[in-house]
């Protein structure tokens, strides 16, 4: 496995091979994209008089400039970083433009998914891999899939938004040239003005009407990075001040005149219907206007969210039983029995002769487990909706605008285009706002309250109970050590399918094996001569979905824990062995950087221990060292070092914040979080049951961003997967105890 091998394309790629045939990687570029999107620019429809839009990301009226953030802002900062990419090229300064989130349109299809959906290892830059990615891009263009996820925001928009800004700038200059009779070459732009050779400044807003009348200048290239004013430099995120001052309105803060408030109680057995209910007590409670029956539960409409929550809690409901085991032990049992050919997802990768190699040398084998975990961003699920005879209008923070239309429309018998969607700033997501529990029930409720705007807020308890969790998984790994080297690794895991579950609920089911289960499982970059990675997909368990870093959040823990066990069995140093085995030069550099940052010198002694882990997910390689001390009060995490290679750091301050947040997310949930089922419902219903990390447990986290990768990569999720195995490996180094199951606090105390 010294070289990164190729794999066959997945079925959809074969289907689009005719298109793919003529496309070599590199023929796609931002120019073509900007030009093509102009034809179906969704901004055209809402354009006022004397206004212009050059592409789906820029709109100028006589009053203002509006830039479109294509992705949903779930705290990762795209509401700032994406518009800055445009503003950089347009010579606009912060404060000179308004920011709006993209509405549903295929013009905003996610080009970044070409990296994740093409079935090649991220480090594989071969012609065949690039050709498959180009073909995948064409497939994505055809489907128009608009989604925030997979840490794709920067890979998707880094190039195309700068081109969009450059097109706008050059077209404004062309309009100014036409008006003044001066050659375009003699015209420049600065701070929202076109500047003529004699110093005359024409604000962009004054050129809007004329710019609409000249052909857009599409033959542009984004500027050289050496000229950048904002991109790549430390800058103030545009949303920081309004968030600090408490002025920014999240979805849950919005208000519409005449609206009433709703809260729901839904069948804890996820997806199953309501059988009967008794609302007699609730109907007598203060503020209550109405009780509404919906498919999988009940809603109370009231004059205040709190009245609605109190009253809905007082409704007695009889529920249909779950479609999965009622008790948690039953879930584990199904999973344990899923390592069988009939549940095979896919053998994702096979190198050498694993079965023969396992018979030589010393056998190492271990079983690992990862539980269901909830997302629980701090802003609960919510939304405002109004249904009229024409259709539905909905205000909700969501990562998949088109699927919101689909789900809401399907729930109440509309066509998707009858649903008008307004995306909102969100108080976090972590994958939660890719699901539709709030969207579907809001449509059902508003449909029974026609003409009245309804603001739905889930109670925290209801949000926990309806949270479609992270996949549950078991890994059974085997390997062998011979002459101080890892000679074989046979990685098998059984899991529920998070991405396929989400796609099915989005109305786009697939029969392909769930590729997210391969993440952190097949993309192992160590030179192990006999290697096999296989997934099994358990059936009949809880629905599951994408949780920050998705498949790699569990498989990364399994793989890097097992690699560590094998390294230990071989008598090697965990850091040095990883560096020696690493088959990708840029990734080896990353590990070497981490060793240097952390001043890695082997065992620490005195109750201290260090663990290292390295996982590539969504194309971004991340390596982490965790240092712990075994104290009288339990394990204390002292420090974490993280090295991340994203090809290009677009916003260094936000980058550091994202990386630290990802590490904290990975550590906190590994330590103390799980969702377990009893009587068909989640047993954890608020944060005291599912706490993750609090400030007192938070270590110092030192971050280094590298730019050696040939592509621009995302950073929202990839820092998560190495955190849990690095911690488990550190605990082993400090105590000699191997923890093979999350959450770790089932097995060891933490400070």
């Amino acid at each position: 496995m010294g070289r990164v091998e190729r794999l066959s394309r997945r079925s959809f790629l074969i289907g689009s091979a005719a298109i793919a045939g003529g496309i070599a990687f590199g023929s796609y570029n931002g120019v073509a994209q900007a030009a093509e999107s102009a034809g179906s620019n969704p901004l055209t429809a809402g354009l006022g008089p004397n206004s212009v839009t050059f592409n789906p990301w820029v709109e100028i009226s006589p009053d203002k400039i509006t830039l479109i953030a294509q992705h949903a802002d779930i705290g990762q900062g795209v509401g700032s970083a994406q518009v800055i990419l445009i503003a950089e090229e347009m010579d606009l300064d912060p404060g000179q433009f308004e920011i709006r989130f993209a509405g549903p349109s295929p013009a905003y299809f996610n080009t970044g998914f070409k990296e994740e959906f093409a079935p090649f290892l991220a480090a594989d830059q071969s012609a065949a891999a690039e050709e498959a990615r180009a073909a995948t891009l064409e497939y994505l263009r055809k489907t128009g899939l608009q989604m925030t996820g997979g840490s794709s925001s920067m890979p998707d928009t880094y190039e195309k938004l700068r081109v969009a800004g450059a097109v706008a700038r050059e077209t404004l200059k062309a309009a100014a040239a036409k008006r003044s009779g001066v050659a375009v070459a003699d015209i420049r732009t600065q701070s929202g003005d076109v500047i003529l050779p004699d110093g005359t400044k024409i604000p962009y807003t004054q050129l809007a009407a004329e710019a609409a009348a000249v052909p857009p200048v599409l033959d542009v290239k984004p500027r050289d990075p050496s000229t950048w004013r904002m991109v790549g430099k430390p800058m103030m995120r545009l949303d920081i001040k309004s968030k600090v001052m408490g002025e920014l309105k999240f979805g849950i803060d919005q208000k519409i005149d005449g609206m009433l408030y709703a809260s729901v109680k839904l069948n804890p057995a996820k997806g199953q219907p309501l059988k009967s209910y008794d609302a007699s007590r609730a109907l007598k409670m203060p503020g209550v206007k109405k009780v509404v029956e919906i498919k999988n539960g009940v809603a109370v409409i009231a004059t205040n969210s709190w009245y609605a929550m109190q009253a809905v809690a007082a409704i007695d409901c009889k529920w249909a039983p779950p479609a999965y085991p009622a008790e948690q032990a039953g879930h584990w049992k199904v999973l344990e029995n899923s390592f069988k050919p009939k549940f095979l997802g896919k053998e994702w990768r096979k190198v050498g002769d694993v079965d023969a190699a396992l018979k030589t040398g010393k056998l190492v084998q271990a079983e690992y487990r990862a539980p269901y975990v909830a997302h629980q961003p701090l802003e609960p699920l919510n939304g405002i909706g109004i249904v009229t005879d024409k259709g539905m209008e909905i205000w909700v923070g969501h990562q998949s605008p088109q699927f919101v239309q689909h789900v809401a429309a399907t729930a109440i018998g509309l066509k998707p285009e009858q649903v008008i969607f307004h995306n909102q700033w969100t108080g976090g997501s972590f994958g939660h706002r890719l699901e539709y529990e709030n969207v579907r029930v809001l449509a059902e409720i508003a449909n029974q309250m026609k003409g009245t705007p309804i603001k739905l807020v889930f109670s925290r308890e209801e949000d926990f109970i309806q949270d479609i969790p992270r996949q549950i998984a078991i890994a059974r790994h085997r390997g062998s050590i011979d002459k101080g080297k890892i000679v074989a690794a046979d990685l098998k895991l059984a899991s529920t399918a998070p991405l396929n579950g989400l796609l099915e609920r989005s109305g786009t089911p697939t029969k392909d094996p769930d590729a997210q289960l391969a993440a952190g499982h097949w993309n192992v970059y160590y030179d192990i001569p006999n290697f096999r990675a296989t997934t099994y997909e358990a059936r009949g368990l809880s629905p599951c979905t994408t949780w920050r870093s998705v498949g790699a959040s569990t498989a990364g823990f399994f793989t890097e824990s097992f690699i560590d066990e094998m390294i230990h069995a071989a008598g090697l140093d965990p850091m040095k062995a990883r560096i020696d085995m690493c088959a990708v030069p840029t990734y080896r550099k990353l590990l070497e950087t981490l060793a240097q940052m952390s001043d890695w010198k082997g065992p620490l002694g005195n109750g201290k221990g260090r663990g290292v882990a390295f996982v590539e997910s969504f194309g971004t390689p991340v390596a982490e060292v965790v240092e712990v001390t075994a104290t009288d009060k339990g394990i204390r995490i002292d420090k974490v070092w993280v090295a991340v290679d994203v090809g290009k750091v677009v916003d260094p301050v936000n980058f550091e914040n994202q990386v630290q947040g990802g590490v904290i997310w990975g550590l906190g949930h590994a330590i103390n979080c799980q969702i377990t089922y009893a009587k068909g419902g989640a047993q954890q219903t608020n944060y005291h049951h599912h706490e993750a990390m609090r400030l007192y447990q938070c270590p110092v986290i030192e971050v280094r961003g590298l730019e050696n990768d040939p592509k621009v990569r995302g950073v929202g999720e990839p820092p998560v997967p190495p955190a849990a195995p690095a911690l488990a490996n550190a605990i082993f180094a400090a105590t000699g105890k191997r923890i093979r199951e999350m959450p770790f606090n089932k097995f060891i105390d933490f400070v």
Partner: protein
Amino acid sequence: MIELTVNGTKHQVDVVPEMPLLWVLRDELGITSAKYGCGIAQCGACTVQINGKAVRSCQARIGDLAGKSVVTIDGLKNRDKHPVLQAWIEHQVPQCGYCQTGQIMQAISLLESTPKPTDEDIDEVMSGNLCRCGTYPRIRTAIHAAAAKMAEK
């Protein structure tokens, strides 16, 4: 009718006395800077000042607040130049930002009682405020920075 003072303005609200202050602020008065996160004092996102003390507004019955003065982040004195808010901006603490108004109101309370907090003081007082995005390192830095700034004066 229950009368209370919020950010210096008197309001009359017609709700049951059991209603928590949080929901009076948000749904009755339209003051949305105090956030609903958990409803059971586990997250701190709803933190406001009542008579100068940081309180979880999800736990304060409106019926108990007659004659008391409530201050949300919108009503802080010297808000535009407040050293804690300035430190939060300078160190770019927020990610999603949903918990941050509560974090700031708690930090202001900490700095009033402990002008030069140690890391242990910060752990003690701030650990009741959850941040799901994991901005804790920046929260700690911003509190130390604000303390230093306030000590200059």
